[in-house]
């Protein structure tokens, strides 16, 4: 703060306001994260990759031109992180990752997703409210506070195998509900 107790922007070494990066990152992190998750669809792996991507984006923010597409820039950085990660995984002999051809065919709809993310999030909230009590409880347990699928199963007294059928189905129900909700708001 300056002598008059007025808030000042903190300036990064490259001259751009840190708050610029901050607000851009917060506004767009979900899309970049989802891009990574589609190509590295394991929670922990996607988290790590996203953290790496965030670090690189911060370090290289001086290369980003304000006013251009922040998501596209972040996705480009994420792509390189994913490539590097996949190479390491292959060297370790990990066969549980999508082949290159399939990765190319997974559609990059980041731009579309970014545009409609608020609508879809709102729809998801409505749809959660429409679940049965049981299903809502299970979904909230799973995602509210790092409760694993195994822990949810133990909590409600069913086998883990059974819970690996119940929770995916509830998410499918939410997917269809969001799809319907968003579609009914669209004008064709």
């Amino acid at each position, binding site marked *: 703060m300056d002598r008059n107790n007025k808030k000042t922007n903190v300036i990064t070494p490259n001259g751009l306001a840190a708050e610029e990066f901050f607000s851009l990152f917060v506004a767009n992190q979900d899309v970049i994260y989802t891009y990574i998750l589609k190509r590295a*669809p394991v*929670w922990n792996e996607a988290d790590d990759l996203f953290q790496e991507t965030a670090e690189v984006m911060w370090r290289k923010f001086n290369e980003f031109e304000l006013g251009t597409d922040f998501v596209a820039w972040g996705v480009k950085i994420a792509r390189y992180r994913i490539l590097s990660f996949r190479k390491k995984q292959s060297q370790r002999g990990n066969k549980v990752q999508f082949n290159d051809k399939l990765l190319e*065919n997974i559609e990059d709809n980041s731009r579309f997703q970014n545009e409609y993310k608020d609508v879809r999030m709102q729809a*998801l909230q409505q749809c959660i409210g*429409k679940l049965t009590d049981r299903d809502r409880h299970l979904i909230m347990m799973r995602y509210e506070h790092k409760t*694993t699928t195994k822990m949810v199963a133990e909590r409600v007294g069913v086998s883990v195998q059974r819970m690996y059928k119940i929770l*995916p189905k509830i998410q499918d129900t939410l997917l269809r509900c969001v799809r319907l909700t968003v579609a009914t708001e669209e004008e064709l």
Partner: protein
Amino acid sequence: MTGQSSQQNRLYELIYLMLDGKITAEQFAELENQLAGDPEARAYYNEYIEISSMLRRHGNESAVSLPDQFVSEHSQINQSPALDESFNKEVKPNRKIRPAADADDSSAFWEVIEQDLSRNASLTNDDDTPEAEPVGRRPRTLSGVPSSKSIFKLLGALAAVVAFAVILNTLAKWGQYTPPDEYYLATLTDAVNAEWDSAIAVGDKLKRQLINLKEGYAGFTFNDGSYVIFEGPTTFTILSEDSVYLDAGRLYAKMGAGSARFAVKTRNARIVDIGTEFGVATDDSGNSEVHVIDGEVILYTSDQHNKTKKQHIFENQACRVDSERNTHPITIAKTAFARSISSDDGFVWNGDNIDLADIVGGGNGTGTGNYTSGIDVFFGNIKEFELKDFRDRDGPDGFIPVSESPFIDGVFVPDGGVGDVQITSAGDIFAQCRDTDGRYWTKILNGYNPAQGNLQAYWDMTLNGRKYGSPNRPGIFMHANCGITFDLEAIRSSTPGCRISGFKTTAGATEKPQVTSPSTYLDVTILIDGVIKHQRNDMFEGNYDDISFNINEDDKFLTLIITDGGNTLHGDFGMFAEPRLVLSQN
């Protein structure tokens, strides 16, 4: 087109396993194969990952951290007045997240949720085994800086807290609120063999909601008066009092008398009915079809530039919209949709007419009768065709009831020369009956197979160049002198929700396959309750008439008669091609 497939069920199970890091090598191979080979599966995969990501963000499970270098270099941001407040909110325990003030805090449901939340906090510790096998995982924080100081975690937590509070508020409102009647949009008025995903019963009023009909048929009356029948398996949402969203499956819609429009939305189209009846089918691949049974609809789609296209589709036309939103005209399938259902009888009507030839064969007019069976005119019983049937003989006296079929009033051999000819059980008379020789030749038959009679060179049931007398082209074979009366009241009782609006047939003398076949000279007469609706005398082989007339609600009997033209009955092969009672909905 059907509802959700087991393949899709398997797909979301595999994706979920993969996200949790629990997928086996075999399961992964199955998932990869499915995604590689099916663009629809890839599209679904994208959606499922997006939903999963949103759920995680919504539930604050994300462990994403801003780079700690950023945090340590710019700690002034932590002291920003705008952020202090949000920081303070984050550190308070989750128990502060309360439902809305009007919620019942003592309800069992909320207690369970809150107990779980507090238990979650105590269970979340370093011993908690992560979901995935660690594969080259990097520590979550760098340089030993605790992640709890991460600004991103703070803001993420704040967003989750706010979102969670909003959701709890909404849930509390749902639990406490009884919507008024006008909130309801449609009523389930009938169902046949219906199985649901949730507890729904006939008589239930429904608001805007997603419904999964797993099998059977269900009829809904909407508040605007429109009536919609869904055929399971189908998933749909009641959107408003005059619109539905069809996710997968099929429906038939009939606009209400007081309704200005009724709309059906699918993934790739919107169909607006401006009068009166249409069917819509859609599948998991995103294809939709609309078939206009009566009236007109407007079909709205959008092209790849999201520009709206509009197209009128008229009665007896149909259109398909593919997953790319291209439209194609197709052949209408009027009988592909259930148009009337009745739980009293388990009756489902798809628009088919009543086939009178099928009734002659002992059926109910919908194809349940026997081909080449028929009615013995002397005894009034229904029997299989036999070769020995072909012989001249004297007819019985009077009207012979047919007790083996509820839909046939009776049969007779018409001979105006011996007095009044009774043609119904109610005593109706055919007053202008010709003086015949009072003899007949064979049964009144549902179709005729010349090979059976060893007479294929002699005659068959060809009329106007088309061969009839088969299941695909039904026809009643009636050699002179015979008459049959159908009981319209009984047929109406068997088709609830429908009315008989008319009768159609092509009637005349069969074409002669050989020049040596005996000459044909016969008369065709059709009556309703003893009143002539059609008559043509002195018809030669190959002569025919296309006949169509309306039937009123109080008409009771329909009679078909072939007489011998005033000379002998030899060679008088008459027939009624595709004789049908036309059904309409009530």
